[in-house]
């Protein structure tokens, strides 16, 4: 089954049509999504700023990374669930939205990021605490994570602004208009 036909199938589901038809479903799930971003995304932000040595410097990296980890995971699950509901309820719209795919690409890069730095940074905090200066790879991991997450938030916000492909006759830059 191709992705397009899957999206079409998803659109036809009863729950998706119910969600799309409900006035309250979308904003409530969106607000929950945003609240999770604020609370648990904020924790991700603070963890990365700690690795950069900008915040919570009197606390050990192990405490900051280790203690917040289960909450960040829990928050991520909630965040992704809400996001999947939002996208799933309007699959057709999201499928044609380049910002949605930008966001998905950035999220995929974040998975790669976590796999790359997992052993040397995020599961290696005891060694980071012993080091006199924060190793470059930890700072690199933190900076990349911050850039990617801010990219995810930006792309996510821009999803709502996309209004579909510009008709060729109206488009200012013909190269930018992609036929669906």
């Amino acid at each position, binding site marked *: 089954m191709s992705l397009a036909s899957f999206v079409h199938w998803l659109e036809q589901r009863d729950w998706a049509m119910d969600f799309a038809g409900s*006035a309250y479903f979308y*904003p409530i799930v*969106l607000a929950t999504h945003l609240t999770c971003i*604020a609370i*648990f995304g904020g924790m991700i932000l603070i963890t990365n700023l700690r690795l950069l040595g900008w*915040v919570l410097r*009197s*606390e050990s990296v192990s405490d900051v990374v280790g203690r*917040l980890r289960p909450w960040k995971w829990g928050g991520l699950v909630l965040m992704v669930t809400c996001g999947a509901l939002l996208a799933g309820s309007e699959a057709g719209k999201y499928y044609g939205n380049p910002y949605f795919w930008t966001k998905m690409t950035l999220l995929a890069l974040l998975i790669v990021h976590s796999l790359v730095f997992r052993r040397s940074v995020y599961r290696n905090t005891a060694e980071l605490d012993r080091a006199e200066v924060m190793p470059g790879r930890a700072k690199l991991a933190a900076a990349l994570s911050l850039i990617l997450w801010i990219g995810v938030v930006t792309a996510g916000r821009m999803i709502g602004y996309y209004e579909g492909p510009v008709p060729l006759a109206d488009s200012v830059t013909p190269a930018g208009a992609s036929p669906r």
Partner: protein
Amino acid sequence: MRVPSLWQTRSRPPARLRVKAALRAPYVTGMLIQNPLNSSELAFPVLECLHIVGFTISLGTIAIVDFRLLGLGMRHQKAADLNRDLWLWTLAGLVIVVFTGLLLYSSDPDMYYLNIAFLFKIVCLLAAIIFHYTIRRKVVSSEASNGYGKMVACLSMALWASVIFGGIFIGFVNPGL
């Protein structure tokens, strides 16, 4: 844009707001044209993203301390110690949020002024800020890890979450004009 049907039935804003809007309209209309924010398509979304990053900074730092008050998260530290390291970031985030928020508001004051979700948001925001810098501050510095502290932490989270919910609903309720 989706408009919830419940609110849609109230086609006109309350008389109190109608009068004020009438008085304000010419001035606001002039401002809409002059406001440089409205001459760029990108200005609003960029400000919105800064707004989101700002409240992520402040709410993330607030949540870490609130979680500690609830006995969760960074339990090795005292709430007061965490707050000493984080309060400046909370404040910085709030400054970014309020500053970008005012700019966003200026793009279409009438729409916001008459928007019930916006009014709800502002009431919650003021309550949250006052609560944050009075009752919660005392509890955090007093180190009282008890039921009262937990209640304060829950109330703090609830108030801030309400601000976000109000903010999201601005785009989903009938603007009233």
